[in-house]
Structures are given as C-alpha cells and as structure tokens.
C-alpha cells in the first residue's frame, strides 16, 4: 500500500537510524526527473540552534518514509549535498520552487496558486516517491475561490517557475481531501492515456 503526503508534512520530520538515533531532520525536498519524482532531501541538524547540514539524503537511501519519521539504515548513507543536487540536475530536475506558481490550463484558465505538493510514497524500499498533484488555493474558475483543493498531475508537465501548465481536464479531477485523492489521480492519469 502506498500513501499520499503533503511535502509540508515531510519537512522538519526527523531522520532516524534503525539504531534509534535522530541524525538530522528534513529541510527541503529535492525533486528529480523533471520534477515528477523526489530525488532526495536536504537536511538540517536537530535542535534549536543547529543549521543546515552539508550532508543530504538521496531517496534511494531512504528505508521508509512514514508519518512520523524518515527511516535510514545508518548515518553512512548520507552523502554530500552537491552530489544529490548534481544527480537531480543531470536527470533534468528543475530544482525550482513551485510554491506560489500559478496553475494554468492549456486552454488558458487560471486554476489557482500552488500552496503545497502532494507526493505518493511507495511502501517498499526501491519504490518511487512521485509527485502526483498539487494543493492549490482555488481561483474563481473552480467555483470555490479561496479554498484549498487538490489537483492531480500528469506524469510530466511544463513548469517555468511562474506558471504550471496542466491539461484542461485536470479541473474535473479536483478533490478536497487526501482520502479521495488517490482515486482522482488514478482516474485522471487513465483519462490522459486515453482508451487502450
């Protein structure tokens, strides 16, 4: 079973070894492969006065991403931040921050602005951590202006740092909570692929 999570819930989550030591906490999510998947996490130290760490955590080294902690085998799996950023850049990751971007349909309708990123976390080691949608603050076009809604994403999309382009049909798959969102993502992607 995989689960859906907002990235805002993942930041500050402790990184804990199987020996029960909290070696870091998540600072930011680094996207890879065109922004469609998570490449890893930049880290900060634990405690009030600790700043960012020079070590980062690649997604491939994560044993599990749970609701309370990011589990790793031990501290040796951390790698220099630059290695992670280079790997992400090499796979075409934008590294840009999508928060605050305006979501536009390919027919030119403004659906709202991005306030959070929704991830689907595979439960077994080696599973992907995919970006499956965004939480947006809805515009008038959705009829619920000002409320936060979730919209599913196709596997790839164009993003400029200001705008995100989505197919016009994305609008029909909006949902209001994470519980029903998994089905929306699946339905939306099936529709994009077209009849088999």
């Amino acid at each position, binding site marked *: 079973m995989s689960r859906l999570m907002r990235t805002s819930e993942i930041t500050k989550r*402790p990184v*804990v*070894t*199987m*020996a*029960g*030591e*909290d070696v870091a906490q998540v600072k930011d999510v680094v996207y890879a492969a065109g922004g469609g998947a998570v490449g890893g996490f930049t880290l900060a130290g634990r405690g009030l006065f600790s700043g960012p760490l020079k070590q980062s955590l690649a997604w491939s080294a994560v*044993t*599990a*991403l*749970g*609701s*309370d*902690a*990011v*589990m790793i085998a031990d501290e040796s799996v951390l790698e220099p931040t630059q290695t992670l950023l280079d790997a992400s850049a090499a796979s075409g990751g934008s590294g840009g921050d999508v928060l605050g971007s305006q979501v536009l349909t390919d027919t030119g309708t403004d659906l709202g602005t991005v306030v959070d990123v929704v991830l689907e976390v595979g*439960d077994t080691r080696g599973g992907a951590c995919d970006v499956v949608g965004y939480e947006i603050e809805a515009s008038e076009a959705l009829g619920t202006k000002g409320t936060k809604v979730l919209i599913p994403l196709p596997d790839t999309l164009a993003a400029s740092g200001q705008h995100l382009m989505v197919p016009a049909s994305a609008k029909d798959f909006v949902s209001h909570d994470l519980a029903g969102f998994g089905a929306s993502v699946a339905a939306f992607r099936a529709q994009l692929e077209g009849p088999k």
Partner: protein
Amino acid sequence: MTLFSEAKGRQVVSTSTADTVGKVHELVVDPATRSVLALELKKTASGDTLRYTDITAFGEDAVTVAGADAITEAGEDVAALLGKDHHLIGKRVLSSAGDDLGKVTDVEFAAESGRVTALHLESSEVSGQRLLGVGSYAVVVAAEQ
C-alpha cells in the same frame, strides 16, 4: 515472564554467603540479541555490573549469584549500552516504516534467558522479536508485514 518494573529494586543475594550484595537498578538491553545483557546494580563493593550469564537465578523475590565476585566493573560491550540513551522505558517507539507507535511503558523478559519477549506500549504490545534498535531518539521495531 518478568517485567522490568518488577525486576528493578530486586535484591541480589550471594548463594555462598547469603549476603545481599547489591540491588537491581537498571536492566541493560542489547538490541542486537534482543535480550538483557547485564544488570546495573546499586550498593555494591566491587562494581556495578552483573552480566546476565553470571546470574545463578533470576527469582521472583531475589536475584541469586554464586558470589560477590560475579559483580564487576562494566566491560566494553556493557559500557556501550549504559545510560539513558539505551533505556527503553518512557521512550517513543518508531516502526521501521517511520510511524510512531507510542511510548514504552514496560518491558517483559524471560527470567531464565534474559530474552526480551514483549514491549508494552500505552495501548498496544509489540513482540520482542521485532526489536531493531534502541537509541537516544527512539526504540525502533520492525514494521508489521
């Protein structure tokens, strides 16, 4: 089965002299073997560590040893597991899937072998077989399949 809460404070008595040679203060758990490696004692003359294998019996009313010389200073392996960072009771429990399961309220172990048989949490119980690690932040247990 014996609980840590019951074991603490139990007297340690020498079978050769019938003297009380110490009192159980803490139980030192080795997560690698999922068992009690040693007892940390209070009020002893020769040291504060009694290895579990040096115990004659872990009885219901007292722990018996052959003689006071079984009580020594902590060896390297025991010393590495001493201290608050390695205590289980009161610590949060994380599954290997990264989910918080609650806090450890007590630990159950087999008196004959020292093997940890169960962790008691506030509202559940976890088999001792699932224990993976005990660190300063959390007790880690294998996630349920």
